């Protein structure tokens, strides 16, 4: 590994890294619980005011163009939200007449493969760290309608007021033609 954590490093740095990783894992598990228990207001508080919540699309491209098979930030996307729009999505569900989520779907978020591509041991106030993870999201609604949404997330987590906050979220789903009729579930 070129930077940051080394398994052969000083014990203090190793312990600090493990402590930070536990904090990050716990952050994601709490986020999953908030979403799956429909506790959307505290969920919104996990995001910074300047967050970009972005879900690009996937293309079928030749091998030599594989690096472009995720649409860029200047392209269209499934979702390209700022904080205000994210809040509106929550408020829409809370109206009780957002028919696509009324009655609510049953959802489970499984978050795994949490990894820091450039590991750090400490995250001081105002500092940020990139965190990669996988999601496996099961959605079932009404009688038998079922969707499985699987892919990767790449978050930028920032420490603000001592807490972790999501400053940027990139959601990369493993589908080109989306097989769910809508994306009313937060990923």
């Amino acid at each position, binding site marked *: 590994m070129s930077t940051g954590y080394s398994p052969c490093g000083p014990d203090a740095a190793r312990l600090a890294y493990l402590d930070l990783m536990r904090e990050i894992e716990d952050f994601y598990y709490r986020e999953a619980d908030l979403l799956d228990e429909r506790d959307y207001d505290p969920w919104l508080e996990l995001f910074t005011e300047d967050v970009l919540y972005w879900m690009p699309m996937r*293309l079928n491209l*030749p091998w030599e163009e594989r690096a472009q098979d995720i649409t860029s930030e200047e392209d*269209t*996307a499934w979702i390209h939200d700022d904080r205000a*729009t994210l809040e509106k999505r929550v408020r829409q569900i809370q109206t009780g007449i957002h*028919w696509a989520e009324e009655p609510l779907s049953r959802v489970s978020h499984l978050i795994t493969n949490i990894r820091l591509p450039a590991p750090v041991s400490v995250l001081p106030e105002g500092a940020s760290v990139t965190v990669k993870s996988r999601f496996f999201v099961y959605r079932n609604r009404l009688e038998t309608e079922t969707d499985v949404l699987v892919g990767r997330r790449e978050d930028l987590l920032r420490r603000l007021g001592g807490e972790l906050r999501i400053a940027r979220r990139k959601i990369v789903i493993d589908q080109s*033609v989306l097989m769910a*009729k*809508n994306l009313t579930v937060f990923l």
Partner: protein
Amino acid sequence: MKSLGGSAHALVDMQLGEISRELFVNQDLYREEQERIFARAWLYVGHESQVKAPGDFFTSKMGEESVILTRDRAGKLHVFLNTCRHRGMKVCRYDQGNTKNFICPYHGWSFATDGKLVGVNDYQAAYQPPFDRDQWGLVEVAQLKVFRGTVWATWDPQAPSFEDYMGEAMFALDKGFAPWDGGDGQTELLGVPQKWIIPSNWKFVAENFSCDVLHTVSHRSVDMVGIGPSVGEGRRDPMGRQLVTSYPGGHGCLYGIWPTETPRQDYAGSAETAAYFQDCWQRRIKRMGKQAGIIPVVGTMFPNMSFHAQQPRTILVAHPRGPLETELWRVYFVDKDAPLAVKRYLRSYYLRYSGPAGMTEQDDMENWNYASAASLGTVSRRYPYHYKAGLRAGGASDDVPGRVTENPVTTEQNPRGLYKRWADYMDAPDWTALCAAQEQP
């Protein structure tokens, strides 16, 4: 093609405004539609901005089938069926790109971007005598038309010209796909299409966009939270008086008519966008006078090309996949000359409005989904759908061509017109009969 003897018209009662549920669930009707509608009508294929340079291609669909829109080495546009003439393999499985040839991965036949078969594996040794390669190029559409950047095609050589097919609906396309200043500048797509699958019949989508003002109640939740391009409630800026217009070809459109003496305040949520729109609006008035205020809001060009032409600006094609399954392809367009900041602002607005994550469109898809599901049953199918709004209203207007209803604006005349034309296609054996049927009420 043999005539169905008027059996389709029996399912579509124009006098009573009642349409059989069979149109939305019946497998046999669905198969007939592929032959009688999608293999005959003019279909939207793509946008010129997707194939700018020689060798550029974009893989699209016409009805159920995969097609390739490509610009050949000489700069000419083509639309080909995406299947090898040897054993049927797709010759292109990439969404877009630039290529010299389409090479079949199965036995290696290769086709140039003008469709010619230019390479056959083991040609000299395997084929004695050699076969005529000119006869085995890619299958090409019978007619192709580019109009204000949009690319259309039909498989049927007997189909009327694009202009005759659209008839007076050309007015809607001309106004709807012009840049904001109403001039001859270009529009471009913001990026690649959104593609997703919904569990309902394609006609729910077509009729919804042909104009269904009554269904705005579906969108009450998004209106309450407010996602419009200006700060405040709702989904859109005001668009003026509204007129509903249907055309004999089965096309339908809702227009907004803005009184040009009244100032507009659009896109107040973004200073750059508001300024750009205002500048275009002034030039539009200078160019078009009172006509400047006439802009389509939403429409469907028969059978399955739908659009929003004001807020947002987008094309939605409902590709059939079965009586109860549709693949939606949605693209978004902007003025090519608009500043980058404007395009970015429009993109975020468009994306929170439309598509599977669009806060407006999500609720439509829930309704189409369970309307389809609840219409499948033996007993359910006995009861026709109700299309009686504005049944005897409508006439002509000085502002726009076509059959126009302003009061009530909630009229269902456009879905009625779409299903009347649907029945024409299903019953008429050829284009002579189809053209004659168009003149019948």
